[in-house]
């Protein structure tokens, strides 16, 4: 068979879209694994409906997975796909608007039946009415080719049809020169219990590959060379996976067992699921009766000397605030993970937003300061988790760790760290009386202001702590006005004095405009800054990983620039803080669409200020 010509590309964005039942997430994940093994840099973003089983073929039932891969370092899953794989009319309808004219469109011809067209709200068949003329359209009879390929396998028609995603994967793997061994192994492992289904999937996958080779519809194949990444061992990782690993690492590096209290909530449930599989690390996971009990149990475990952690999302965090207040008063370590999603209320559970910042900073009664750490990238969720635990333990304080649905589900290659290079975050429990033959639970380290932490089981240090105001030192209940004023200031001072790394600025050319971001917008802002620079513009980018306290040099950094732009997926929360805190006339760029920023829209916003 004649080999088809190969075209070299430096980067490609592919979106797989289909019905929730079509297995698009699996297809995307497998394509991602193959791509990782090629050595491309990559970034992925799944986009799935909140409904587990929306009606088949309907618009709300469409599930998508986008992957961006390249021969160079990239920061985002890509603004727009170059290639759209649409498994049915509904997937075409909901995704076509994102495909630029001239893009490649691969559709499952068999799915464009009258009934499916009607469910997707098409009056006429788009494959026939010329409305797709602006695209490179490949109509592949995916379903019938799959049925044909597996006709000798002893599976039901439905089971046979369900392997069509593997046909699509095989075709795309051929088109982009992806290695196939990993996927075949995966299929055999996954369906080890039902040989026939394994056979059907494997045949469909191989048939997809063969179809590419033989069909005249596909004239060229594409190659994307490996990227030059920093040397080391890599794995592909989502933000939630990295965050869970970070918590395990924090447990190992602190020598304290993690106790995770959690209540299932999208998009944070995967953290509870992941950690429940690491019991051999001494990790206890407690699925509580509600969000309040989840944090309560975690705090109770902290009181007993565990590393108490709870994981949730905005609608759950709001229920936890009472207990966060108690943890502030008790001055016990506790890490509260907020995987932010679009709100208010139930909002859009699977969609990202970063609008919980002011809630975690201020959403409690009275003066109740809490340190806040925010992850910037999927892989960065690991470091953010270790950092949040470090602060919690060292300063005996609850700490908020912010992620979001975009980081949680998005993936990228992650340079696996060496265990020895991770920070030692162990602390000492009090074992001796600390004041004239007594134990005073609120006696402090003069530098960190952290109190002595004695855990139950330690003889002679029996003491009581509680939510009532207490006298500093003794911890005895106190209603003394001056003591209260002192304690309020002391708790604030303790948090303000936390050691956080300086804010780094990416400013290769000495720009006049600084873009200041935080959290999950790191990728899009970074990509936008590159885009602007490539077009000859001059812009600086700084990204906050610590929102309370701010890095010590934040004021200096902000004052170095004539103008400051703060893009956020909220209505200007960090913007309010920097304006109030540093008297800087910063300007916001705010979109709350439940979608990550596109780098081109941010590039436009930046250029508008140059």
């Amino acid at each position: 068979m004649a080999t088809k010509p190969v075209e070299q590309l430096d980067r490609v964005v592919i979106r797989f879209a289909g019905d929730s039942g079509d297995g698009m997430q699996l297809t995307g994940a497998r394509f991602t694994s193959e791509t990782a093994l090629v050595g491309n840099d990559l970034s992925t973003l799944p986009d799935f409906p909140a409904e587990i089983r929306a009606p088949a073929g309907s618009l709300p039932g469409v599930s998508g997975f986008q992957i961006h891969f390249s021969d160079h370092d990239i920061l985002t899953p890509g603004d727009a796909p170059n290639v759209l794989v649409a498994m049915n009319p509904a997937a075409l309808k909901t995704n076509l608007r994102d495909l630029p004219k001239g893009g490649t469109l691969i559709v499952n011809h068999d799915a464009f039946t009258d009934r499916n067209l009607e469910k997707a709200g098409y009056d006429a068949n788009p494959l026939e009415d010329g409305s797709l003329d602006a695209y490179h359209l490949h109509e592949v009879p995916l379903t019938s080719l799959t049925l044909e390929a597996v006709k000798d396998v002893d599976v039901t028609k439905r089971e046979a049809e369900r392997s069509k995603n593997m046909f699509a994967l095989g075709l795309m793997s051929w088109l982009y020169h992806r290695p196939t061994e990993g996927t075949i192994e995966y299929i055999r492992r996954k369906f080890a219990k039902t040989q026939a289904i394994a056979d059907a999937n494997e045949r469909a996958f191989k048939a997809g590959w063969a179809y590419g080779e033989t069909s005249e519809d596909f004239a060229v194949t594409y190659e994307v060379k490996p990227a030059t990444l920093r040397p080391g061992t890599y794995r592909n990782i989502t933000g939630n996976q990295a965050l869970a690993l970070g918590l395990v690492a924090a447990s190992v590096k602190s020598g304290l067992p993690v106790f995770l209290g959690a209540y299932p909530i999208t998009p944070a449930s995967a953290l509870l699921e992941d950690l429940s599989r690491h019991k051999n690390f001494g990790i206890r996971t407690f699925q509580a009766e509600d969000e309040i009990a989840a944090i309560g149990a975690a705090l109770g475990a902290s009181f007993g000397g565990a590393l108490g952690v709870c994981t949730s999302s905005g609608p759950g965090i709001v229920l936890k605030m009472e207990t966060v207040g108690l943890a502030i008063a008790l001055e016990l370590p506790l890490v509260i993970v907020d995987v932010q999603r679009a709100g208010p209320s139930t909002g859009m559970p699977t969609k990202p937003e970063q609008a919980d910042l002011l809630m975690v900073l201020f959403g409690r009664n009275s003066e109740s300061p809490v340190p806040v750490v925010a992850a910037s990238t999927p892989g960065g969720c690991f470091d953010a988790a270790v950092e949040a635990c470090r602060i919690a333990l060292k300063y005996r304080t609850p700490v908020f760790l912010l992620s979001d649905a975009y980081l949680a589900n998005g993936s990228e290659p992650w340079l696996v760290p060496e265990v020895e290079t991770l920070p030692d975050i162990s602390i000492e429990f009090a074992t001796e009386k600390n004041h004239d033959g007594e134990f005073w639970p609120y006696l402090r380290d003069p530098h960190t202001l952290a109190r002595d932490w004695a855990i139950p089981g330690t003889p002679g240090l029996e003491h009581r702590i509680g939510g009532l105001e207490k006298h500093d030192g003794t911890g005895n209940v106190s209603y003394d006005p001056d003591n209260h004023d002192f304690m309020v200031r002391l708790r604030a001072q303790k948090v303000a004095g936390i050691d956080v790394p300086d804010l780094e600025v990416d400013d290769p050319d000495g720009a006049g405009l600084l873009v200041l971001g935080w959290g999950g917008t790191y990728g899009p802002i970074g990509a936008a800054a590159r885009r602007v620079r490539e077009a000859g513009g001059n812009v600086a980018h700084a990204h906050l990983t610590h929102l309370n306290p701010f890095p010590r040099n934040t004021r200096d950094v902000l004052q170095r620039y004539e103008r400051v732009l703060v893009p956020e997926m909220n209505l200007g929360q960090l913007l309010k803080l920097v304006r109030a805190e540093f008297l800087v006339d910063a300007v916001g760029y705010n979109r709350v669409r439940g979608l990550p920023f596109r780098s081109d829209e941010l590039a436009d916003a930046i250029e508008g200020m140059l």
Partner: protein
Amino acid sequence: MSGDELDAERGTTRPASGNGNGTAAVPLTAKDLKSDQEVRWCPGCGDYAVLAAVQSFMPELGIPRERIVFISGIGCAARFPYYMQTYGMHSIHGRAPAIATGLSASRPDLSVWVVTGDGDALSIGGNHLIHALRRNVNLKILLFNNQIYGLTKGQYSPTSPLGTLNRTTPMGSLDWPFNPISLAIGAEATFVARSIDTDRKHLTEVLRRASAHRGTAFVEIYQNCNVYNDGAFDAVREDKVNENRIPLAQGQPVRFGAQGEKGVVQRPDGTLAIVDVADVGEDALLMHDETLDDPAHAFALSRLAHTPTGPTPIGIFRAVERPVYDELMTDQLRAATEQKGAGDLDALLHAGDTWSVHS
């Protein structure tokens, strides 16, 4: 203690007893359990009697003080931990069972006690209470029932009788009260008992049994709030002649009265009735069996008195064995370690498909 030692101590090995029992080096006395804090309940409050009973019976358990923890929520009774020279936490309203669950589940070596009230446990904290009970976490929950909100100065509570007149219900309360014993039994509790603040002997015996129980022990204590609800339990509390106290004794017929002249029989429909023993004969009386797995017997007993104004059962309604949450959790940690080996962080970080980039 370093993290490692701590881990080794409690990690994956179950302590000799699930109740934190152990032998204190020097036997404790009631005095050893008194903290230096001045007790600040109203003079005459029933809480004093319970505190004294707890402080005097605890030393006999032989548990070192440092292994005892009292956790409370909010309310008058919630001040309890401050007065005990043990570890303690005065937490937030209704959440003590949740906080104590985390502590007990992560530290099976401790003896963890929850002190709560009718508002704390049955109103704002109702959810945590029922889930602690069904899980059978190793906790001893003492519910001081005074049928009133004392700390906030006298509003009706979820155990106040219908029609209670007080500050927020000038025309009488509209809500039907909980029967705490029925609630606990309905919530799958494995140990359910009722006692009275001023009956030191009975209360001590019940606390002893609660302490020895593996899992959650729920003890309702009739506690007089002499300021806002004085005499709420007088029919039973001041019942010197056993006219209204129906003592529950394991394996004994359920009977009461000065001469044991009254008794309880089971009707064909399963409900219970109070009768004159002379009318039915001793053999017809219901035999009490706290160990019955089926909760119907205990539940029927709890329904004899919805509010304690007439004959009311006192004692242990139910005491059955069921797996204990904390122990199951510890067992899973041990099993996971046996199956997979102790956690290896480096291997975990490198798990799954990895690839190398060379310089």
